């Protein structure tokens, strides 16, 4: 007993000395607001698992600020921005979370951004890729991200379409929501920059069952490569509709399709899509990759193989983001928002799963990943494997 208290005191002293014993026992809460139900439930589950594995590692190493354990508090946003903002408020005001993590839906994240800045609570995006989530114009800006940025992903997708598929005319098929809009802007700009024509832009609803009419419009407009932005269920409908129309056009996709059971839902044409990921658990793995895969299998009984670590992007981004936040807290020596924000900006180096981060955040750039960190992959059965190019 005395030994343990001694260790705690020593830890407290190391972490800045001002932490009282009573507070040392108090956990540091980290909040997650993500889709835990509905069509994108799988994404929220993946994020939660990535965060949890990282948190377990931090806690196993003795926690932060003198032995305070990290604790994950999750809330379902039902993909509804109103619900998401209310949940974020609750986490900030009632649970007193030190930082918030976001989910797959850009509209929800966009609704939380002003709240985060107003309440000075660091908000870490781990999936939603809308450009203006981090580039929101606030000063000081409390929003960070370990995920793709649409404008950068869009450049990569256009590059892949031109390089791998020799595309001359792009057909955009986008989900009809904020995320689709963000990518419409990004893809149009990227295409203009790369000097490639956009044959047409078509939208589909989250619950649409038949995309053939939209695809026929793109086909008639002369598209020779499709760029798909959408989540797994409607994304699968796009592939089924393509199959039905017997239009074997190449498809490059944003990573939304990896947020659910895309291979099951899309059937035999699932493997035709090349899509972007930040990380793949297949192929040669570094030490961190092996460790995370082992931890996932140990903690979650339904993870029996690498292919069960789904969606990999959610797990990987969340894992790295949680560690970066932990580093930021350690750096700041405090869980107070403004200090944590400074702490995040002051992180010098972090050996993460996706890459080794060097100065991941700076006042001008709150996005830890850039276009060099994206890999193009495709489904092979249920698992995801890299494609060359």
């Amino acid at each position, binding site marked *: 007993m005395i030994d343990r208290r001694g260790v705690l005191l020593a830890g407290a002293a190391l972490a800045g000395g001002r932490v009282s014993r009573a507070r040392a026992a108090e956990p540091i809460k980290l909040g997650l607001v993500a889709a*835990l*139900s*509905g*069509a994108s*439930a*799988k994404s929220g589950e993946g994020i939660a698992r990535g965060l949890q594995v990282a948190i377990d590692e931090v806690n196993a190493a003795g926690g932060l600020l003198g032995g305070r354990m990290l604790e994950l508090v999750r809330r379902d946003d039902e993909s509804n921005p109103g619900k998401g903002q209310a949940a974020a408020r609750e986490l900030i005001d009632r649970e007193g979370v030190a930082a918030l993590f976001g989910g797959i839906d850009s509209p929800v994240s966009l609704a939380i951004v002003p709240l985060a800045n107003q309440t000075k609570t660091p908000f870490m995006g781990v999936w939603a890729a809308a450009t203006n989530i981090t580039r929101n114009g606030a000063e000081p800006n409390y929003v960070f991200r370990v995920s793709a940025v649409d404008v950068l992903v869009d450049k990569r997708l256009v590059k892949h379409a031109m390089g791998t598929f020799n595309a001359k005319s792009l057909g955009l098929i986008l989900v*009809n929501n904020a995320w689709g809009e963000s990518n419409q802007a990004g893809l149009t700009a990227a295409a203009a920059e790369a000097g490639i024509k956009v044959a047409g832009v*078509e*939208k*589909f*609803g989250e*619950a*649409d*069952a*038949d995309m*053939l*009419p*939209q695809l*026929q*419009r793109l*086909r*008639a407009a002369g598209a020779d490569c499709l760029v798909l932005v959408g989540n*797994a*269920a409607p994304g*699968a*409908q796009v592939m*089924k509709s393509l*199959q*039905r*129309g*017997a*239009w074997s056009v190449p498809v490059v996709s944003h990573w939304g399709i990896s947020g*659910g*059971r895309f291979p*099951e*839902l899309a*059937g*035999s044409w699932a493997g035709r899509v090349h899509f972007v990921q930040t990380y793949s658990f297949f192929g040669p793995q570094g030490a961190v990759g092996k460790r995370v895969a082992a931890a996932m299998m140990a903690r979650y009984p339904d993870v029996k193989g690498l292919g069960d670590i789904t969606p990999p992007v959610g797990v990987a981004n969340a894992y790295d983001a949680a560690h970066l936040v932990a580093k930021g807290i350690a750096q700041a020596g405090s869980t107070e928002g403004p200090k944590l924000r400074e702490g995040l900006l002051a992180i010098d180096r972090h050996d993460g799963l996706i890459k080794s981060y060097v100065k991941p955040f700076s006042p001008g750039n709150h996005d830890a990943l850039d276009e060099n960190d994206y890999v193009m992959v495709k489904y092979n059965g249920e698992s995801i494997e890299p494609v060359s190019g």
Partner: protein
Amino acid sequence: MLETALVSGLGSGSVYGLIALGFTLTFAVSGTVNFAQGSSMMLGAVVCHALAVGWRWPYAAAVPVALVACALWGAVVERLAVRPFVRRGSDAWLMATVALGIVLDNAVMALFGKEPRSLPSSLADEPIVWGEVGVFPLQLLIPAVLLAVALGLHWALRRTGLGLRLRAAVENADAARLMGIDVVRLVALTFAAAAALAGLGGILVAPLFNVAYDMGTLFGVKAFAVAILGGLTRPWGVVAAGLAYGLVEAGTTVWLGSGATQIITFSAVILALAAAPAGVFGRGRVRV
């Protein structure tokens, strides 16, 4: 483009028609409907998925069992959410059926999971292709099933004893009771049949779409619009309205883009009702 609109429109329109036929059945006999028909549709698809994929039953066994499950559900809806309120002379069955639909949707969410799943079918695997238009055999089967069901219903109503009793109950429930017809049971039967029809629609559309606990909501709403446009008590009107709705939907998507689809179709519903308030409810409710 035209072919696409036709194929897509007839396929989805047929599913709306199937679900909407259920509305006409119950409405004609009892003046009530299961407002949560979409949930019955979902139940058919989910039970079929659980049996065919989860337990690896052959479809020949899974589909009938799923339909029976739907029929039982329909009878439960009638017993719990319709009959008690009709007895009281209350309109609350409308909300009660909605409530029961919410209960079913969320119970299924708890049991089946939140994620959409796919129902594999050899009929939705390899398309038949003509030029730029491809159809899954299933897409051709759905309108055929709708037509067969409508013809079968037509035949059964005209040529069987049960059909005759049903028509008698539609025309004059009290007189039918005096003929020894158990109208209460007949109403329960129509609710069961309606749910089974919706379940059939769900099973048919599942391989083209996917199976999810919330898949029925939008289908149910559209099918109700179809039932109302078709005139609620006229089966053939409903079949025609279903196909027309599907075609307008697909046509709008093809020629105006998908963003306009719901605005156009639902505006059409409002305008149609304003121009021709079929008034079955409206007139029936005013007692002079």
